[in-house]
């Protein structure tokens, strides 16, 4: 029977939503291929993630719970993935295209003499191969990528773009068989030591956000982000920014959306005072619904938007915040 593996990306024992989206994509593919789906849960104190994997649809879980995997480092994770893949050669190994997912998949694939296929937004199974649709040229083109037949290593390594595939509905209480495996590397064989983190707790990450409210040069200065931040908070979303606002030093780079920032694909993207330059579009054009608030009716962002407001963001954004506060009972 064909077999698909899904690598579950987790941080400090919590799986990323993108991991379950990848599992959902794999389940769908498994239907076309008549395959079973095994998830790989690597980390330390991550047994709860293994349980969750069954609820999200895994047929089986391979678990490696080890102190060397407490912090993500590419080598111990990739060495383990490469060993498991070499031993069982599943047909497909999928992982979310997150910072960690990309690292571990690229390293394991190269170790096994093959290339990973990055950042898929659609999967199609035909004649024994999986065709991956991948945006290229800063999102201006799409290409289909496929592993060649007759290559030296059988498994296809594929990373999937967060929010490009729907997250499955979990079934509470579903469970299954967990296979426990040992880590491959010992601590003294790992050349990298993690010395700490600087992380803002409770912040919605851009990659995961269902709703993003972004500000551009139109906000006029660091204080101008206040109404943008307020709207993002009322909607339970994350705050984004254009490069112009980041380069002006009004907001940290972590918020930048676009070709040289993050690629996002929320359900709702509200652009406040952003003109919609092609490089900004590269990062947000796959958002489901785009709302543009801009003084200039000719701004290119209106070509992309579903709804447009020609007006001053300092009047519209606060009005939206108070309207939604009422509607959402906040």
């Amino acid at each position, binding site marked *: 029977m064909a077999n698909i593996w899904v690598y579950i990306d987790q941080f400090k024992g919590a799986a990323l939503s993108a991991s379950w989206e990848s599992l959902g994509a794999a389940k769908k593919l498994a239907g076309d291929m008549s395959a079973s789906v095994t998830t790989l849960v690597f980390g330390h104190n991550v047994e709860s993630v293994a349980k969750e994997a069954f609820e999200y649809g895994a047929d089986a879980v391979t678990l490696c719970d080890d102190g060397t995997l407490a912090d*993500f480092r*590419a*080598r111990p994770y990739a060495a383990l993935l490469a060993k498991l893949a070499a031993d069982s050669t599943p047909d497909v190994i999928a992982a979310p295209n997150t*910072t960690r997912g*990309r690292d571990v*998949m*690229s*390293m394991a694939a*190269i*170790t096994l*003499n*093959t*290339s*990973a*296929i*990055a*950042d898929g937004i659609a999967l199609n199974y035909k004649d024994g191969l999986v*065709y991956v649709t991948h945006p*290229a*040229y800063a*999102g*201006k*083109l*799409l*290409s*289909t*990528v496929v592993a060649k037949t007759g290559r030296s*290593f059988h498994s296809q390594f594929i990373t999937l773009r967060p929010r490009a595939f729907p997250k499955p509905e979990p079934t509470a209480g579903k469970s299954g068989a967990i296979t426990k495996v040992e880590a491959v590397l010992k601590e003294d064989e790992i050349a*990298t030591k*993690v*010395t*700490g*983190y*600087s992380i*803002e707790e409770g912040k919605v*990450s851009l990659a995961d956000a269902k709703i993003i409210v972004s500000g551009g040069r139109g906000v006029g200065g660091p204080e101008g982000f206040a109404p943008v931040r307020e709207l993002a908070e009322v909607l339970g979303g994350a705050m984004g920014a254009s490069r112009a606002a980041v380069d002006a030093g009004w907001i940290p*780079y*972590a918020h*930048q959306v676009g*070709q*040289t920032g993050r690629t996002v694909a929320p359900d*709702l993207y509200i652009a406040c005072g952003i003109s919609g330059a092609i490089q900004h579009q590269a990062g947000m*054009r796959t958002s489901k*619904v785009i709302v543009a608030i801009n003084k200039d009716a000719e701004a290119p962002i209106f*070509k*992309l*938007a*579903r*709804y*447009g*407001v*020609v*007006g001053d963001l300092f*009047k*519209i954004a*606060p*009005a*939206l915040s108070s*309207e*939604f506060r009422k509607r959402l009972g906040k």
Partner: protein
Amino acid sequence: MHIVVCTKQTPDTAAKVEVKDGHVTWGDSGLVVNPWDEYAVEEAIRLKEKHNGKATALSMGPEGAKETLKTCLAMGCDQAILISDPALKGSDTAATATALAAAIQKLGDVDIVVFGKQAIDGDTGLTAVAVATKLGWTPLTYLSKIEIDAAAKTVAVERSLEEGKQLCVAKLPAVVSVVKDINEPRYPSFMGIRKAAKAVIPTWSVADLGLDPAKVGVAGSSVTWPEIYPLPARESNVEIIDGSPEEIAAKLADKLIAEKVI
């Protein structure tokens, strides 16, 4: 300290990229240093200045890619090398990494290799890790800070994850990739441009790298790109909402709730 920076030549970001007869074209728009790589080049130059070392710019591509290598020289890299060979055409990540790793080994005394986060044409972001794996060196990706301890042969870094920053220390040699907030790339100086114009950039072929042509290019690749096509146009019939701010907010709230995005 010998720092190598890998750069790729890509179409100008504002270029109108199209597909004609199955090939990607961008009219007469210029080619530039891949935007993400500008930060890598800047970081390589800063590291060499700080550690009194040498920075080498390395690129793989057609003869014309020497133009982008000249930009790297003009910014302050000490030397540049182009890997170019018809046999490399159609290389996937693994085949590209094979060639780059062979060139880094040929250079010999390299301590750290710096990449940009990804190339804006292929947009995979896998090559830095692939090269690290081929070399058996430490991969460290998405760095926003690099501090090298030359005596201890270690590097302390700050990595950008989805959740925030991870701080790590690793042994050299390492292969790293950098993100935008690591630095502000400098403009080439007038003197730099003059020097770069005169510079001779050696070209290394597959044979020069001692590689089997069957291990690179289409032959050495495990994936192919059977199709490339323009993004389907986004329906652009924007619905303009007007009225007073309060009316706009109410109308928009109705619409967004009906769209089920809130």
